[in-house]
């Protein structure tokens, strides 16, 4: 009975996202029709939430097999892992679409709005397909569609030349990654009868080591490209900022997670752990991505680019967790492997929540002030208090502070690092224990980064006219933001509710992982901490009574202006100074007028990062390929006699081969 209901709900989700909503949108021009379609999208996602939580909390999967209709086996199924990621998608999709309701109304004319909603719904569908696919064919279709539809959504926003170029880089990287993924799938073929996950899982035992390693590496590279690990991340800060905010929320919050899903599916479910060194590789790549990601993020002034880079950081943290889990797996310590995996997967969910919240917040800011450049914001907290409050929650969560969800997952990962101590007399403990320091550094930098974000954007004095006259965002937007913020707080304060099913998922993925006590201990202590802090805070707040509003103290001078505040650039200056080897900044200071340097009227300061992966890695590679192409081009001399010569040479050489062939 329950199974049936789940199946029905799942079908409803697929059909309404894939068929009804787009058709209705394309069909009717009227506002009511559009609203109906949108409510269909929201409703189906709510249904999806129920389906996913059913399958996540109490193991009960649903399978939809369409192989009769398709050329190659195409089946969708929900097991616990899929359920988690389906939950991620639907949970984020609901508030995002509610937010988008008023965002798209505001930003697009009628026709474009219809298109954007249609693509939006299809984009959601493609992601659902990816995480529920149970055959390679289905997975790859969803995978490619996901890329294409997101690119389409970016291009609906506008079609300037440099936007086109960014989309090009996005698509190219994605396609290269997809090629790696495809190879990863197909390498199973000689050993498994088909590309459905069941037979792949059974075949994985028979794989020779070389192939096994190859598959693992390909999966890591392919999914890593999608996830945006450094140095495969170059598309990410280009593509995410230029998408419309709800879409970038989905891309950063959810789409990246599908890559994590793919990697988890391959590394843990299908392969059941890779060679001994793979864990270290994943861990170190993750650490590098996280550290560099957050450092680049701090240096950014464009809010959405900053958020994109912080996505790189969080993906790095997730991969650190996965890598740790793989290390423990390789050393046969399943309990700790389970803990690390739980941390990584929980961080997937948390990052989905607060990153989409942040991007939606950026959207709210941009629709209130028409800019996301931190240098032009400020003082928004008094003008849009609710948005500010939700964003404050998001900033605390992403900085990994206690009482917010980010902390719980980072704590689990910390804890699993500490667990490395059980692997004495291997090479693991030093690496893992020192990783505690690395993760701590990352956490500290993240905190600094988001102090900057919230402090500069929302506090102090407005730095521009637009920020001066900003107004609180409309109801729909506030609803979306509020829901996400509530979710962040909930997991942050009462993680136990979510941790239990997660633990049982981990037990599926990592055979022999008992219930790690740590997960329960954190679940026990966090609520108490919360109680104490909130209690004290409230008491104190009640104690403080009288207050008088005065001008900010200006050293006795006549009044401060917004120009005198610390800007985003200056805030990050000390950190940029300390880590200047990462940025290799190219600083420029111009004093105007030129002739009297000691009494400048106007001083401008530029500092640009000169380290660029495009220049150092990608450009030379592309140049090489293009130069080959040009060489070949020269062979196509317009001279017909040369062409004839080619034919004769082909004949002669083949004859020679034939003659001297054994």
């Amino acid at each position, binding site marked *: 009975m329950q199974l049936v209901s789940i199946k029905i709900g799942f079908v409803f989700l697929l059909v309404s996202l894939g068929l009804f909503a787009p058709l209705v949108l394309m069909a009717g021009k009227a506002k009511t029709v559009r609203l109906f379609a949108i409510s269909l999208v929201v409703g189906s996602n709510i249904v999806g939430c129920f389906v996913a939580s059913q399958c996540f909390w109490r193991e009960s999967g649903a399978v939809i097999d369409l192989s009769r209709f398709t050329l190659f086996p195409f089946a969708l199924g929900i097991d616990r892992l899929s359920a988690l990621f389906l939950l991620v998608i639907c949970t984020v999709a609901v508030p995002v679409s509610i937010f988008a309701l008023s965002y798209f109304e505001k930003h697009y004319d009628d026709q474009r709005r219809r298109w954007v909603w249609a693509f939006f719904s299809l984009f959601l569908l493609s992601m659902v397909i990816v995480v529920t696919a149970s055959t390679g064919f289905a997975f790859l279709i969803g995978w490619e569609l996901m890329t294409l539809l997101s690119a389409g959504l970016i291009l609906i926003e506008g079609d300037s030349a440099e936007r086109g170029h960014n989309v090009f880089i996005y698509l190219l990287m994605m396609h290269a990654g997809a090629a790696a993924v495809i190879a990863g799938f197909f390498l199973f073929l000689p050993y498994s009868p088909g590309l459905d996950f069941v037979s792949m899982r059974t075949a994985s035992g028979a794989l020779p080591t070389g192939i096994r390693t190859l598959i693992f590496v390909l999966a890591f590279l392919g999914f890593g490209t999608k996830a945006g690990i450094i140095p495969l991340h170059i598309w990410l800060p280009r593509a995410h900022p230029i998408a419309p905010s709800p879409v970038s929320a989905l891309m950063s919050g959810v789409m990246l997670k599908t890559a994590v899903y793919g990697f988890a599916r391959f590394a843990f479910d299908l392969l059941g752990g890779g060679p001994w060194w793979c864990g270290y590789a994943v861990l170190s790549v993750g650490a590098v991505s996280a550290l560099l990601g957050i450092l680049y993020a701090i240096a950014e002034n464009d809010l959405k680019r900053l958020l994109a880079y912080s996505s790189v950081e969080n993906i790095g943290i997730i991969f650190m967790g996965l890598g740790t889990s793989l290390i423990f797996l390789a050393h046969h310590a399943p309990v700790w492997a389970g803990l690390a995996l739980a941390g990584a997967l929980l961080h997937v969910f948390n990052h989905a929540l607060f990153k989409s919240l942040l991007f939606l917040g950026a959207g709210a800011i941009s629709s209130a002030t028409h800019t996301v450049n931190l240098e032009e914001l400020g003082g928004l907290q008094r003008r849009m208090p609710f948005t500010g409050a939700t964003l404050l929650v998001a900033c605390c969560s992403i900085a990994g502070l206690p009482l917010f969800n980010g902390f719980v997952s980072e704590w689990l990962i910390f804890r699993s690092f500490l667990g490395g101590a059980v692997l004495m007399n291997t090479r693991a403990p030093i690496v893992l224990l020192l990783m505690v320091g690395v993760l701590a550094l990352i956490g500290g930098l993240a905190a600094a980064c988001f102090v900057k974000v919230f402090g500069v954007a929302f506090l102090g004095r407005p730095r521009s006219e637009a920020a001066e006259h900003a107004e609180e965002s409309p109801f729909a937007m506030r609803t979306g933001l509020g829901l996400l913020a509530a979710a962040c707080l909930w997991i942050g304060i009462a993680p136990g509710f979510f941790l239990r099913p997660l633990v049982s998922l981990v037990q599926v993925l990592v055979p022999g992982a008992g219930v790690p006590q740590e997960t329960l201990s954190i679940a026990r202590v966090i609520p108490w901490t919360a109680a104490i802090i909130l209690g004290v805070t409230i008491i104190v707040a009640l104690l403080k009574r009288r207050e008088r509003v005065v001008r900010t103290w200006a050293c006795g001078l006549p009044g401060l202006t917004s120009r005198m505040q610390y800007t985003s650039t200056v805030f990050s200056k000390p950190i940029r100074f300390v880590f200047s080897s990462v940025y290799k900044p190219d600083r420029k200071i111009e004093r105007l007028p030129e002739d009297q340097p000691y009494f400048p009227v106007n001083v401008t300061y530029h500092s640009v990062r000169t380290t660029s992966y495009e220049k150092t890695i990608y450009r030379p590679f592309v140049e090489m390929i293009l130069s080959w192409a040009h060489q070949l081009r020269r062979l196509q001399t*317009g*001279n017909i*006699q040369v062409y*004839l010569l080619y034919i*004769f040479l082909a004949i002669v050489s083949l*004859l020679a081969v034939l003659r001297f062939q054994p």
Partner: protein
Amino acid sequence: MGLVEIATGKVLTSFSVFLFLTVLLLVVARRISTCIVLFSAQSAIIAAEVFATGFQERLAEAYVVGALVLVIKVAVIPRAFFGLANRLKTSHDVKASTTPTQSVFIAAAMIYLSYAAVHSYGQSVHVPEDALAAAVALILTGSFLMVSRNKALMQMLGLLVLENGIFLAALTTTFGMPLIIEIGVFFDILIGLLLMGIFTFRIRDTFDHLDVSKLRRLRG
């Protein structure tokens, strides 16, 4: 034994020598008209060979084929070529990109090559070796003419020589293919030449020269 038998015998033993002669002359020839004459001579030799074979093997359709060769390749095509050359009013120089001496050496090399090639396959196919060699030599020469002569007309001629070679090969290895096919092939060649004629006019009209090595607008 009658005179005819002797003649056929002579033809069958000696025609390949004549063919090699034509080949050598073709590659050194400076004027298009010479080449045309040589071509028709070559075709005549082949026709004779066809008749001889037909007589020897008592093949009725061989005579038909021979007649076709005689009519089309010895008479019609050369005449058409002369007509074309006059209508186009181009210089009679073949515009060779190799000097006569080089050409002779290359041709000699190719004759040797053809013998080598035939020798390798010859024993598997039980046919008069020099005949097959001559055929291959014709193919190679045709290719050489097409590659090294810049005049459109010469390319057509080279194509014909090449085709002659293929025809000869077919003839010597298997006594010609089924008649219909042979006829179809001839038909194709005629149409092809016709079209090439049309194109030479178009080239002349659009570029006012016939030097195909200068047709290099489309490249890359």
